[in-house]
């Protein structure tokens, strides 16, 4: 997998100074976070549902081969075909071959994170095939030539003014002359243009929120209905899905869909939930002639067998962890440097592109635990971030200076006499330096801290020294 080494700190710094981005990010709290809170308030059995969802996923992941094989059999029985892709390159090859077989020139696309992961759009373009994103958010970032910054709201980082400007620039060719005022106007404008694209498309590519082993179905949820049009209008429908999307039964999907919608947007259910099973049958009114599922491994089977990290495969991509993450809220999704941002990205990205490539991600967290608290699949995200840190420490990816400082501190912490001697001396010195101000405006070696905040000075004597001296309350 070729991924640029994410320049996390530089990207985060840029994001923090980007006023438009900072403005766009403020909407997360009033939108997603508030809506989820309200949705849970009226659903006291959420915890029960959550436990059921976790159990379903744990069971499936423990028997992944079994359910994937069943899924393949059922897809074949309903007239479709399953293709297994070991890595991103293989997945791209399969999709391109299927597109070539369909004689495709235009491909409509529903939102798909695995599509981003294997960089399918670039591959299609290189093969002379035009990919057209049909999810409004994806369409917007396609116009902007960018990548998604959030897994359920890809264009979350854009302000309305930026979106209006994008439409004015790119839709002039379709006759758009006046400025778009409201959100419905923007939606309508995109819809007008996309309508024609749907009918031009030779192939429709969608992701899948879930795959049902029992029926061989792919489940796609959208709030715009674009998934349906992408899947049913072209003659060929390709479903791109990673292995861990499979679940045993339709019943299981019901549980997970309820968790997904509430956690993602605070809806009781997503507006459109479609089940695609095989190509059109003779008495079907619509549907594609060919139905393909590309099952992408791309590192999943390794994660599934990794006792440290296998829990991450329970993720249903609801985005709640990033919505509630104060770090994501500060820097947005692009700073994370690859497909998956936020806490889930910080856990998943190093597993998929390599610990060293993504070294900053698991470290840039306060481990505040809000992500785990809201994750509908109870994934212990802070614990998994710590496991990455352990790996980095063991593999000596931690910068030598940091490692040395840590070792020195740990050495002291295990030698109380030295520890107390040095804290006592250190605190007395700091107190003297602070004189009577009670804080430091600037302090050598603490530049990171004091650049934009003061450092409160210690009171002077350490507690343990005073206690030993016999001081009592």
């Amino acid at each position, binding site marked *: 997998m070729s991924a640029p080494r994410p320049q996390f*700190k530089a990207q985060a710094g840029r994001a*923090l100074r980007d006023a438009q981005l900072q403005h766009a990010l403020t909407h997360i709290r009033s939108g997603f976070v508030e809506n989820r809170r309200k949705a849970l308030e009226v659903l006291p059995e959420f915890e029960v549902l959550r436990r059921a969802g976790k159990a379903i996923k744990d069971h499936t992941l423990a028997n992944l081969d079994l359910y994937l094989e069943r899924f393949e059999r059922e897809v074949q029985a309903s007239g479709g075909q399953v293709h297994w892709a070991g890595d991103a390159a293989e997945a791209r090859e399969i999709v391109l071959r299927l597109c070539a077989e369909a004689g495709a020139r235009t491909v409509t696309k529903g939102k798909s994170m695995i599509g981003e992961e294997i960089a399918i759009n670039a591959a299609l373009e290189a093969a002379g095939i035009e990919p057209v994103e049909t999810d409004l958010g994806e369409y917007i970032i396609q116009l902007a030539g960018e990548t998604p910054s959030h897994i359920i709201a890809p264009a979350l980082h854009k302000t309305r003014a930026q979106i209006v400007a994008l439409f004015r620039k790119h839709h002039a060719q379709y006759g758009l002359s006046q400025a778009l005022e409201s959100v419905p106007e923007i939606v309508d404008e995109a819809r007008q243009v996309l309508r024609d694209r749907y009918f031009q498309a030779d192939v429709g590519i969608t992701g899948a929120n879930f795959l049902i082993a029992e029926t061989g179905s792919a489940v796609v949820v959208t709030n715009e209905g674009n998934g349906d049009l992408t899947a049913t209008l072209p003659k060929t429908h390709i479903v791109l899905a990673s292995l861990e999307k499979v679940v045993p039964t339709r019943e299981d999907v019901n549980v997970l869909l309820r968790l997904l919608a509430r956690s993602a947007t605070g809806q009781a259910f997503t507006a459109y939930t479609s089940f695609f099973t095989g190509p059109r049958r003779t008495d079907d009114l619509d549907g594609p002639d060919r139905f393909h599922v590309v099952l992408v491994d791309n590192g999943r089977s390794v994660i599934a067998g990794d006792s440290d990290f296998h829990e991450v495969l329970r993720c249903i991509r609801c985005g709640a962890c990033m919505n509630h993450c104060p770090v994501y809220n500060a820097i947005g999704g692009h700073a994370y440097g690859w497909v998956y941002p936020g806490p889930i990205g910080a856990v998943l990205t190093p597993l998929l592109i390599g610990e060293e490539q993504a070294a900053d991600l698991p470290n840039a967290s306060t481990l505040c635990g809000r992500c785990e608290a809201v994750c509908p699949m109870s994934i212990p995200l802070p614990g998994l971030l710590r496991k990455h840190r352990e*790996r980095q420490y063991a593999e000596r990816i931690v910068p030598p200076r940091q490692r040395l400082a840590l070792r020195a501190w740990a050495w002291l912490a295990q030698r109380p006499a030295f520890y107390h001697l040095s804290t006592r001396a250190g605190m007395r010195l700091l107190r003297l330096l602070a004189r009577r101000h009670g804080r430091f405006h600037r302090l050598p070696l603490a530049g990171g801290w004091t650049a934009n905040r003061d450092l409160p000075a210690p009171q002077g004597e350490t507690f343990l020294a005073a206690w030993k001296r016999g001081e009592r309350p």
Partner: protein
Amino acid sequence: MRVGLFVTCLVDAFRPNVGFSAVALLEQAGCTVAVPAGQTCCGQPAYNSGDREDARRIARQVIELFEEFDYVVAPSGSCAGMLKRHYPELCAHDPAWRVRAERFASRVHELSEFLTDVVGLREVDASYAGRCTYHDSCSSLREMDVRAQPRALLGSVQGLELQEMADTEVCCGFGGTFCVKYPEISVRMVSDKAAAVTASGADTLLAGDMGCLLNIAGRLKREGSAVRVYHVAEVLAGRADVPGIGEGDDA
């Protein structure tokens, strides 16, 4: 009840008054307090930086020092969380140590939670004239289930008015080494927290963790804010008569 006080390294170094406040509160509640002299730190810097070996050695050291007490109490949700939630995990692979770590963990408490839930303290004998807002530190809230306890005790302080701020459960951006490794992100987070404190209209900020307190006080002072900052134990023990965190003697 014999209580071993785990002072925490930040209280020890920066704010001894919090240690004395904790002792005062525990004694007021009828406990016999001991302060093992060999204590240093709970080991979080090592644990959260991936240095499992050192973290494990420090964990064993703390367990050995404290396992003789009926209870172990820390004026910090973060250190209490480390002792209670993470020590058993650190010792899980060694059968003998696992048992010791689990028995130890079952006796660990955060100060306000110990006072209300274990000792059954309903009110304290203290007064503080001010409008206080309380910041929920992440580990207190999410690892130790501390939310109502400090507020209940604060409700019994004469003259004190509690004024909740927005997003009180959102991290202040301290995060141990996070604040020095990613200062720009950290400052952004603590600025949001300082803004919430200011918007609440409170004149005093309280919290149960020195890390958060140093961070938020540092930002408030940099902004020139007049909001005073104390550890909640200082107010509950009636010992908030000294300069607040980040205040000079001449302030």
